[in-house]
C-alpha cells in the first residue's frame, strides 16, 4: 500500500445536481478500498437530481475510518465539475495548501432574475478567483471533451483522469480498470477512453 502524502487526504467533489457527482466519489472510493485504504464518503442530499449545489466529501486514510464530513478550511483537494461550485467549495473548505482541479463549463442557475441574483459570473474572473484561493490549479475542459466523445456524462471520468495525472492519490489507470468494468459494464471502452483523455488534457492554470 502506497503512503499517502498526508493522512487523511480530504477530497471534495463539487458540482450541480444531475452532473454525476456521486459517481466520481464512488469510482475513487471503490478503487481505494480495493487498494486497502479506509474511505469515508459523505454527500449533500435532496438536491441530487434537481439543479442544486451538490458535493461529496471523501476522506482517504491508511489508518482508520474518519467522519463523513470535512470541517471548514480542511480540504486538501477540490475536484470542481462546475466553476461557481468550485469557488463555493474553496470559500468554505479552502486553505493555503489546497489543490484544485476545475472543469470550466458553467451550468446556469434557474432563477437568476427571480432571486435578483444577476447573471452568471464571467468564467475567466471565476477561474482567477479559484486560482488565487488555491496553491495550485489544474484546468480540464471535461464537458467540452465529453460532448466531442458523444456523451456529456463522460466528463466525470475525464475529471477522474485529470485527478490521477496530478499524482496526488495512490491510484493509476490500471487500478481503476476493474472498478470501471464493475460499475459501467455497458460502456467500459468509452470510460477508459475518457479516463485517458483526462490524463492527457489536464494542464496547470497559469
Amino acid at each position: 500500500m502506497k503512503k499517502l502524502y498526508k493522512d487523511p487526504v480530504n477530497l471534495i467533489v463539487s458540482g450541480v445536481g444531475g452532473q454525476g457527482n456521486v459517481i466520481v466519489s464512488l469510482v475513487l472510493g471503490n478503487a481505494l478500498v480495493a487498494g486497502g485504504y479506509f474511505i469515508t464518503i459523505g454527500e449533500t442530499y435532496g438536491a441530487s437530481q434537481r439543479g442544486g449545489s451538490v458535493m461529496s466529501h471523501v476522506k482517504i486514510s491508511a489508518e482508520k475510518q474518519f467522519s463523513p464530513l470535512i470541517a471548514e478550511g480542511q480540504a486538501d483537494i477540490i475536484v470542481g465539475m462546475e466553476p461557481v461550485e468550485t469557488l463555493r467549495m474553496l470559500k468554505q473548505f479552502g486553505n493555503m495548501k489546497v489543490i484544485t482541479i476545475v472543469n470550466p463549463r458553467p451550468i446556469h442557475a434557474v432563477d437568476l432574475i427571480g432571486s435578483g441574483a444577476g447573471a452568471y459570473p464571467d468564467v475567466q474572473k471565476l477561474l482567477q478567483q479559484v486560482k488565487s484561493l488555491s496553491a495550485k490549479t489544474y484546468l480540464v475542459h471535461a464537458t467540452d471533451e465529453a460532448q466531442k466523445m458523444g456523451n456529456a456524462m463522460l466528463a466525470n471520468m475525464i475529471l477522474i483522469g485529470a485527478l490521477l495525472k496530478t499524482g496526488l492519490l495512490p491510484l493509476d489507470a490500471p487500478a481503476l480498470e476493474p472498478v470501471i468494468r464493475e460499475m459501467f459494464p455497458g460502456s467500459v471502452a468509452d470510460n477508459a477512453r475518457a479516463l485517458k483523455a483526462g490524463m492527457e488534457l489536464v494542464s496547470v492554470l497559469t
Partner: protein
Amino acid sequence: MAKIDINAAGQSHLLIGNEAIARGALEAGIGFASAYPGTPSSEIIGSLAEVAKKQNIYVEWSVNEAVALEAAAAASYAGLRSLAAMKMNGLNVASDFLATIALSGIGKKGLVLMVGDDPAAHSSSNEEDSRAVSKWLDIPMVEPGDFQEAKDMMKWLFELSEEIGSICILRSVTRVAHARGNVRLGELPVTQHRARFDNILDPRNTMPTSIMTLPAPLRHAFQHMKLDKARARFEESSFNRYAGPEKADLLVITCGSGWLYAQDAVNALKLESRVGILKLGTIWPLPESLVKKCLARADKVLFLEEIDPFLEGAIMEYASSLSLESRKNIFYGKHTRHVNAFGELTPDAVIKAIAGVLDIKYEARDAEYAKKVGAVPQDHVMERMLTFCPGCPHRASYWAIKNALMMDGRGGFVTGDIGCYSMALGPAGFFMNRTHQCMGAGSGLANGFGQLWRFGFDQPVIAVSGDSTFYHSIMPALVNGVHNRANFVLVIFDNSATAMTGFQPHPGTELTAMGEPAHLINMEAICRAIGARVEVCDPFDLESTTATLLDLLEQDKGARVAIMRRTCELVRGKTEKQPYKVKLDPGKCLGDSCGCNRLCSRVFRCPALVWDPVSGKTRIDEVICSGCGVCSDVCPVGAISREEALSA
C-alpha cells in the same frame, strides 16, 4: 448499488450504511423484510430486494409502514427472522402497532425494526428523534456509530430480540445510513426457512398461557423485565466503548454519527491526552453501571448527539439518583447551548462545542486566507434554488394548475403533500403549494376546507398527491371527501414510480420489489368506485390539461379527481431516447422587447432554458435539455420548436 450478498467473508467493501445494515440482516439469516420507502432508509429493502430470489428470502415494498411492520411481525410469529424498515415519519404511521407489539411479544424468531432519522431534514418535512420511542414504548434500541457497526449490530440485534422475546429497534441517522465507508464482510449463513404458526407456549415468556391473553398491565410489567435483560446485555456490549485517558479533563458522551465527529475534533484540537470519549452503541435502556464508571473519569461531561438531548436527559436523570459524593459532574450539551437541539451535528459544531467547554481557541484557517475568501464578490457564488429536473412532468402539471386557478379567478389554492412535488412550495412549482406537512395531509386539509362553504368560504381547493402517496394515505381522505360531500379537486401526479426515494414500485405499478408480476391496482377505478368524477390528463398537453382542470374546478361540488399521467423523466430517460430535438430560433425570440417578461427562463424555469445577457435572448443548454418540448407551448411567439428526434 453494491451487491450485498457477495460471499467473501473477511473482504472489505465500500458500502453505504444502509447496505451494511442489509448485509447484517442477511448475515443474521433473515427470511422476511418489508418497508415503505423513505429517505434515509430506502436502500435497505432496495438492496435486499435485489438479492432476494438468490438468497431465498421474501422482500416487499408494502403500501405503508404500518402494513410493513405488521407483515414482518407475522413472519416472526411463523418462525422467520424478519425486518421492517422505515424513516422516522413512517414510525409515526406504524406506531400504533408498535406500541401494542411491544407488549404482546414476538414469535419464536427475532423481529427488528430499523428506523432512519434525518437530522437537518435533508429529505424530510420535519426533524424528529426516534430514540424517544424506545423510552416511550419500552423497546430496546441500538444505534451504529460507523459502517462496520451498522452491519454487525443488525446481526447482533436479531440474537437479542430472540433472547428476550421483544421487538428491538436499530436507529440510524442520515450521516451513517447514507454515508459510505469500509465494511468487512462476515459469513452468509445457509438457512432453510420453514414457516408455521403454532399458538404454543413460548418458554421465554414463562407464563402459563400465551402472553397475548394477559391484561395489558401484566404484559407491561413483563416488558419491563425484558428491558432489564436487555440492559444486562448492554452493560457488557462491545458496541459501548470508552477511549481516552484514565482520568480526563472532559468526558464526551456520544452516539451515532457524533462518535466519528468527536474523534476527528479531538484529533484536530490535539486533545487526545485530555479528552475521553464514551461512545454508546446501545441507546435504551441505559447501561447504568458503565455510565456510572465513566462519569467518574472526569468532572466535565459534554453530550454530542443528533437532534434531541436524549442521552443528555437520560444520563442527567440517572446521575441525580447517585449518592451525593459521586454527584460531582458538570454537564454540558444542548441544555447549556454548547450544541444545538435542532439541525444536525457537523465537524465544525463539534469542534466548537469541545473547544468551548475547555475554553480553547481554534481557528479553522489562517487570517490571510480568510481575508482572501472575504474578498470574493458575493455575486460570484450565486445561490442555486432547487427545481424540478429538466423534462419533469411536475413542472408542466403545476403550469396547468397555475393557469387554471388564475383563469378560475376565485383565489383558489393548493394543499401540498410529500414528494418531489413538495418543491411547489417554492419557485419550482410557481409557489402553488400553500401547505406542507406529512403524507396524506393535503387531502385531509382539503376535506376541511371543502366543508367551509357554509361559513362563506368560496375559494376552490386543489389537493395534490403522488401516485405512491395515493395508495399510502390518500385513499381514506378521498372516501371521507366523497362520503361527506366535501368540495375539492384531488390532483394525482401519476409518474409510475416512488420517484423521490429512488423509483421503487408501488401498488399502481406492474412489478413487485422482487421483480415479479404484481396485480396492478388501478387508481382511476378506485376513485370511480368511491364515487368521484375522474379525469385523466397528459400534463405535457398544457392546453387540454388546463381546460380539464378548469372544468373540474367549475363543477364546484363534491370531491373530484384529476390524474396527471406522465412517467418520471429519470425513469423514462433510462430506457428511451429523447422524444424531441428542441430548438430556439434566435431570429424569432424577441428578448426583453417581447413583453413576455422572459416567461420561459424566468417563470417556467426549466434548467435547460438559459437567459443569455450578451445576445439578450434565451438559449437552450443542450447538455441539460431532455427533449420534452413543453417549453415550445410556453413561448408566446413560437420561437421554440420541437422536432421528432430521429430514432437512433
